[in-house]
């Protein structure tokens, strides 16, 4: 049972990461990410006050303790965060490159323009 939960979790990481990476940074994905974050924060806070309920849920899933369940969820969220942050970083880098290239070429001396003026 435990292995099934683990496999499901790993698949969830992959699928969610891919889905969020594909879409880039549109508003829907941002909303989903924020909802996931709030949900995770609520569950984490909940688990502090009612550890037994979470443990019961964990046992239902075949995982030993509630904290383990939280740990797994944490791993998933960290990986999703990494994947989406990486993607956003790449977009940013791309824009920076295009901007810098534009400036560099714009500012550079262009001898062929001078040639034309002389003739």
């Amino acid at each position, binding site marked *: 049972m435990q292995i099934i939960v683990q496999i499901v979790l790993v698949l969830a990481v992959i699928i969610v990461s891919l889905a969020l990476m594909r879409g880039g940074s549109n508003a829907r994905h941002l909303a989903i990410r924020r909802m996931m974050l709030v949900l995770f924060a609520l569950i984490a806070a909940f688990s502090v006050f009612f550890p037994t309920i979470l443990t019961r849920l964990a046992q239902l899933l075949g995982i030993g303790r509630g904290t383990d369940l939280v740990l797994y969820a944490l791993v998933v969220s960290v990986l999703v965060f990494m994947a989406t942050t*990486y993607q956003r970083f790449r977009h940013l*880098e*791309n824009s*920076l*490159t295009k901007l*810098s*290239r534009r*400036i*560099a*070429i714009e*500012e*550079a*001396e*262009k*001898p*062929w323009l001078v040639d034309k003026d002389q003739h």
Partner: protein
Amino acid sequence: MSRTWIVIPMYNEATVVGDVISGLLPVFPHVVCIDDGSSDGSQNVAREAGALVVQHPVNLGQGAALQTGIEYALCDPATTEIVTFDADGQHRVEDALAMVARIRSGEAEVVLGSRFLDDRTQVSKMKRLVLRVAAVQSRWSTGMALTDAHNGLRAFGVGTAARIDLKQNRMAHASELIHQLAEIKPRWVEHPVEIIYTDYSKAKGQSLLNSVNIVADLFFR
């Protein structure tokens, strides 16, 4: 009229780039150095040596500099060939000249340098192995039978150069370039070139560990 632009990506190469440029100018009068945010005065050295300098306002990486150089050279309406050349003095001007000649003769649209087509270049066993693996990998993924996938000396006809669009800013651009060529399908040949490993280029060149970064960059495209 035909005009060849030599594109040299440059990042903190003040001690060597001057000699590289003065070696090139008698043969290739149009040399552009893409300064990738150097802080050691490479820009002035290159200008004094007689090259044109295009300056990135921030450091972006060698791939980005190559793409900038290609786009700059394409702005010149007289350009017919674009040659990429390393700033650290490891390439030979004669090789570049022979490669451009092969494009002008109509034999090919792209000429890629390879250090493994003759026995002039001395390569350490480990480096040879890594480069061989890279070449085999690029053959599998692109179908292009290259012997040296990471050689910085390349010559492009202007039509092919215009279709290149490197997005890998850092070191994975060499593999990306091969992938794009496989898509563009120009007539291409490999040309035997000698890589001159000086102490400088050895110290400055890619460490073999960098191949890990290259694979990671390609994987997380």
